[in-house]
């Protein structure tokens, strides 16, 4: 009973304190709510952006597998013979003088100033031009046509000689696009 009386004497104070505490609690709750809501909204916006980014990345990563199949890896060209094999003129029914075959330049292949994981490797056999031969002109023209359509080979000039025993042509700026990323 004594404790009750003492506590009850403090009752107005306790009540006042609880009202004050509750008021402070409500005030801080409002502030905390705003802060948390802002954080939640910001996090959700970031999540949407990241999810979109990841979706795009996944979609493009799937295409990157095709990319790996479309280009040979530069590690396969350890020397001139490797380069010659990578160029693989035989697939077009063409040949070149391996003794004269050499590298003229190699540099990153840029798309809109962006290195996209390809190295442009340029080769030649006579000066800066690549002399190719075929058994006859029919095979030469057929081979040149196939070479022109190959995804990984570029050239910008072509000279066909009609006064040679074999079918012969010179190509200028013959380059190959090779991967420098991913598995060899």
């Amino acid at each position: 009973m004594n404790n009750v009386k003492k506590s009850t004497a403090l009752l107005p104070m306790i009540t006042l304190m609880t009202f004050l505490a509750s008021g402070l609690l409500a005030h801080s709750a409002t502030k905390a709510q705003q802060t948390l809501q802002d954080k939640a909204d910001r996090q959700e916006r970031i999540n949407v952006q990241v999810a979109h980014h990841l979706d795009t990345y996944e979609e493009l990563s799937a295409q990157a597998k095709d990319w790996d199949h479309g280009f040979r890896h530069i590690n396969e060209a350890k020397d001139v013979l490797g380069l010659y094999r990578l160029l693989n003129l035989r697939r077009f029914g063409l040949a070149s003088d391996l003794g004269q075959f050499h590298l003229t330049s190699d540099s990153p292949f840029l798309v809109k100033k962006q290195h996209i994981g390809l190295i442009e490797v340029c080769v030649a056999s006579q000066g800066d031009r690549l002399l190719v031969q075929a058994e006859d002109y029919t095979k030469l023209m057929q081979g040149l046509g196939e070479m022109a359509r190959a995804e990984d080979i570029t050239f910008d000039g072509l000279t066909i000689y009609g006064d040679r025993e074999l079918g012969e042509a010179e190509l200028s700026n013959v380059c190959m696009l090779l991967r420098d990323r991913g598995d060899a």
Partner: protein
Amino acid sequence: MRIRLPSLKRHPKDAGADPSTKGDTATLVGRSVYLSLDDERPKNMTWVKSLSAQSPLRMGRARSQLHIYVDDEVTESKGRVKLMAEGYLRLGLWRSHRTRKVVVMLGGEQDETGTNLLMMVFQSGKLKDVAERFLPPSPAIDFDDLVRNTIQSIRETFPECSIEQCHPLPEWKGVGIDRYHGPQSPLLRFIMPTRLAPGKGLQGHLMIPLLVVVAGAGYYAYTVGTPYLEYRDAHQVAERLQLRMTRETSNRISLDVLQAQSEFVRQERDDSQVLHVDNALRLAGAIHQIPAAQIQRIEMLPKIAQAETGIRSRLDIVVPSNTQIPALEQGRDVLGELSRNSGMSMRLSRQRGISERGATRAFVVEVVGNE
């Protein structure tokens, strides 16, 4: 020190009024009320409230309390009552503070059965003592003498005191009372009602603060909890995305590179090298349609050279000499035929466009566009 007052001014039950009814609040004074300055609880009485026994203006740490108990029979009614003792206490404290003397407040009640005299002694803004005295009813022969004796004994104890009598006792004149506080005295008139609750403990008193705390905590939990749950969900999603990102970007190819690769794959392939071969075939076919014409060279110029010179390709052709016509005229004939066969615009080169080689003539033809 304890006193027990003899009567109830208006007992809620006796008055026949509902004590809980506002505006008809009973006033308790007399034997149903028990006052004490110590903590001992009287039998058959319920503690109602405790009041500070000193003026709020008084400084000091020792703060005693006046405990007020009410008869259990009264508290059963659970009504609201005004406790006259509260008025006496406030008035006594105020008068003590004002007069700076010892003030003895005389309260209580007087009826046909007798007089209960409540004495409260105030000094220096503090209730020092409470006492009671039973006197006969006022019509008694010795009533005035007994009152005078009582006043006299008070004056002997507190020589410089002010003895003041309070409502609802009637004013006793000519007995040595210094001041009478009637029913209109504000401190006696305005007494806050007290709700009676039988056996009401601390839990009951703490119910309101408890409810306030619970309500505050509930509001906090709801207000903060809702956005917190949203934030937690968003954070969990972010963690899952982070894991996914770590897994996806393990090959260390940036999105920019992937996008550039995709763009490169999608873009229209430069078909100039294919055109070179196709046009070379076309020109070779056109030359072969000219009797005895031999191809020395078919040169397909690079794009840059085409842009600089305006020439797409250059042909070196050898034909047997027609001695009947000048070389230029033969050259025009060859050019015209070639142009017709190929569907291309051509011209003889300005530099060594025509040359004689024994029995043959050599022409250098420049293709400048399609017809």
